[in-house]
């Protein structure tokens, strides 16, 4: 369902930053939640969300209204960014830095932003159920993660998912079907135990070798 007046707002956003700000206000929370659920990392989710909106802002003049909420476009950018995050050993964001250089330092409020992040990480760390589910999702290959997250966690329609991922609806259905089979296998208690044991070993290895030097 497209929010009333969104099309006009999108058109205005092409020349008016405040109009883009209104779109940002509406879609920042769901995009951030999506990024948190996909990455399980608060700081990275913040970075990816910021990068998503900066990229959207930079390219808004090229966005063409096709009768679908602009949220699908934001999800598409966020999904691509998350893909980069999972594929690269070091995910770096640059767009926000560039804009910060253009618009000025915001260091005065950085302390509050940092504290907010620390509090959020603490809150998330206490939610064992979420962490377990997120880790389970992350064991799937990216194409299955994407369709499962968008369909069952974000509750998107198949047609929307097809648009976000740039795939045919039939392909999305097929990926969902296979993804669910794999997810069910991962959700078996013994599979989870094995996975958690592996994570402990991995994290111990990282602690012993924090710089990752072989």
């Amino acid at each position, binding site marked *: 369902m497209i929010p009333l007046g969104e099309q006009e707002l999108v058109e205005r956003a092409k020349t008016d*930053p405040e109009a883009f700000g209104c779109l940002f206000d509406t879609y920042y*929370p769901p995009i951030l939640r999506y990024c948190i659920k996909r990455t399980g990392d608060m700081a990275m989710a913040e970075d990816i969300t910021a990068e998503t909106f900066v990229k959207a802002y930079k390219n808004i003049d090229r966005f063409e209204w096709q009768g679908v909420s602009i949220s699908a476009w934001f999800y598409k950018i966020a999904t691509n960014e998350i893909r980069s995050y999972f594929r690269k050993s070091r995910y770096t964001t640059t767009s*926000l830095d560039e804009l910060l250089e253009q*618009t000025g330092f915001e*260091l005065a409020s950085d302390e509050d932003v940092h504290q907010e992040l620390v509090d959020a990480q603490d809150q998330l760390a206490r*939610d064992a159920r979420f962490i*377990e589910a997120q880790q*389970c999702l992350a064991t799937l290959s990216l194409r299955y993660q994407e369709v499962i997250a968008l369909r069952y966690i974000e509750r998107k329609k198949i047609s929307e998912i097809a648009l976000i991922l740039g795939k045919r609806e039939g392909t999305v259905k097929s990926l969902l079907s296979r993804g669910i089979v794999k997810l069910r296998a991962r959700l078996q208690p013994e599979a989870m135990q094995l996975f958690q044991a592996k994570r402990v070993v991995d994290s111990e290895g990282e602690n012993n070798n924090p710089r990752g030097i072989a």
Partner: protein
Amino acid sequence: MKRNQLHNFIEAFETELPRHAQHQAKVRLVLTQARPAEKSIDARIRGALQTKGEFLMHTNIKRFAAPSIIAAAFIVTASVVTIRQVPYAQAESVASNGLQSLESMSPAEKAALALKFGGMDPRAGIQAAKDASDLRTISKEEYQKLVREARSAVTIDQSEVDAGSNTSTNTTEPSTTQVPDSAGVKTNPGSKDGAELVELQAQLDNDVARAAKFVRYTSGPNKTVVVAFDANDAPLFRTVIVL
């Protein structure tokens, strides 16, 4: 059984996640401060100079934030000065236009701006920079490089401050005088000017400039005025950068 596991899995994601109001506000500010899509250079400059809400200022800066901000401003300013000689007239024109734009504000707009600046008059800083002929121009690329260098330098300084291990700082008496103008200041730590930088750091460490105010006036994507004030509204560093 399997169905329940899947349901549990999905329900686990329905948890209430923390709100990130501060981060949201920060990103929004950066986005809305940036220029909208393509406009002509002329329109950008005129439009930006006539826009009243483009000043960024931070008052009551918390401890440790102030040193970072001021050190960043200082290093940028000092580096700007040392990079190259550039046409003064062009920079002066930016400052003059900025001042003119401020002067043309209605009393209500001036009051709103003063409120935003914590009672400080932003014209004073720009006027001071102009009066001191302390105006330079650099390219956008050079500026971005300087900001990156300034940020990395600030990060190091900050860790030293936090750890209390900056021996240079500890051995330097806190300065009670104004920090010198940026003209002629270099960042080479071995030089006299480098000593001035250390002195500034000592001053900051002692929280003399804890309530410093940093103003960065972006008058369009190609023009920027950078001014920093101390707690008494006296200019601390000032420069005009025409990008």
